[in-house]
């Protein structure tokens, strides 16, 4: 059975990071397909941009506050309305295929994913496809140094788009990329100037991440580090889900992100979580890059990295063999 649910792309990024500029160009070149509806959330009232409308099938403006907190009900209502209109058409007709939700600069994409998964209607109609976060190459380092929200946005991303890279000093850009790799090692990174994709130079060998001091909100649990855990061969998927769900229940607030591809009897499953919320696993086609199969990346803090692999092996009843987890130093 194919999944006929609406695809939702969440576009986030800090205030002034170039979300709208990027989205406008992507809609113009048709990067999200033809049948796409754009939902824009502005914390402040702004005039609707005609150019934005031109590339999309329709557009909704949510101006009742940030949609991850104060404006959440309005966002849920808008999405429900779209689902309702779409459900009145049969699957063979031309109908809406995708929604792009541009969040306000103050929104935490993780909270939006959680709100959609918790809504009994939307969870049946919408599947979150991708979280794209725009990162301002000029100002992101300063924001990441002081703003917990900026870090949460980067951590929640599947894809990071660096904007304004043309105006940025190459050394600062390399430092930013290294810092982003520490915060979120699994996201793909690309660059865009005024929405147009530009090629990123290869990351210099000597690029060092900026030191991220712990922010007040994060207390003393230490820095967020990525850990890779190799999945033992022939692992029992049921036992693994027991282990991971228990881990997420006990440590969900410390585990910012879990992502990986697991081989199961049903095929290759792409597993990903944002804090305690697990997105419904997607079955991947057999071809593609198989080298990263059966490795799960845990991004979090407040535990010893090697404990993850030990705990999994113990849970599966396997002997504590060779160290199966290794902390990635700096550049994953």
């Amino acid at each position, binding site marked *: 059975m194919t999944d006929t649910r609406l695809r939702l792309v969440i576009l986030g990024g800090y205030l002034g990071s170039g979300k709208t500029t990027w989205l406008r160009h992507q809609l113009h070149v048709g990067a999200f397909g033809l049948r796409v509806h754009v939902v824009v959330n502005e914390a402040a009232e702004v005039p609707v941009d005609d150019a934005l409308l031109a590339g999309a099938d329709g557009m909704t403006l949510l101006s009742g506050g940030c949609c991850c907190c104060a404006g959440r009900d309005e966002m849920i209502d808008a999405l429900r309305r779209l689902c309702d209109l779409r459900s009145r058409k049969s699957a063979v007709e031309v109908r809406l295929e995708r929604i792009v939700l541009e969040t306000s600069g103050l929104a935490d994409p993780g909270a939006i994913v959680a709100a959609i998964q918790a809504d009994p209607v939307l969870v049946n109609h919408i599947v979150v496809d991708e979280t794209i976060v725009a990162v301002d190459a000029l100002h992101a380092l300063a924001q990441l140094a002081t703003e917990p929200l900026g870090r949460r946005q980067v951590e929640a991303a599947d894809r990071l788009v660096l904007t304004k890279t043309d105006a940025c000093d190459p050394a600062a850009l390399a430092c930013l990329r290294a810092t982003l790799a520490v915060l979120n090692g699994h996201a793909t990174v690309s660059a865009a100037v005024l929405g147009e994709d530009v090629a990123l130079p290869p990351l210099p060998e000597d690029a060092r991440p900026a030191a991220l001091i712990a922010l007040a909100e994060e207390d003393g649990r230490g820095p967020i580090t990525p850990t890779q855990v190799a999945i033992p061969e022939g692992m029992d998927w049921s036992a693994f889900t027991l282990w991971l769900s228990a881990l997420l229940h006990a440590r969900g607030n410390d585990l910012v992100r879990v992502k990986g591809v697991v081989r199961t009897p049903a095929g290759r499953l792409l597993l990903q979580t944002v804090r305690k919320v697990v997105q419904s696993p997607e079955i991947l086609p057999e071809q593609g890059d198989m080298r990263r199969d059966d490795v799960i990346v845990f991004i979090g803090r407040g535990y010893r990295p090697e404990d993850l692999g030990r*705990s999994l092996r113990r849970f599966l009843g396997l002997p504590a063999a060779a160290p199966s987890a290794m902390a990635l130093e700096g550049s994953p």
Partner: protein
Amino acid sequence: MCNACGNPAAPGHWTEAGAASAGDRLRARFHRAALLQSVLRPYGLTAHDGGVVPGIQIGTLTGAQAIVHNLEEVWAEVERLAGQAVDPLDPRYLGDD
């Protein structure tokens, strides 16, 4: 979704992925309940999934019972019944103490 009882409220919990046919799903439920039973025994709890009624039954040795719908709810209920969360990274579980 069933009109009368509203079950299931969401399309498949993520932990139920990986079983395609109805037979596979039932087998996976029995297998999962057996595993859960062995995990919960040291905490003084039992788990049962008969395969007929939706949900997993969690009970204490003194007879308190609860029916939960998925593994996410299992761990929340276990925390409530046992008075502590089952933490796979607990040093006692890892045998470090």
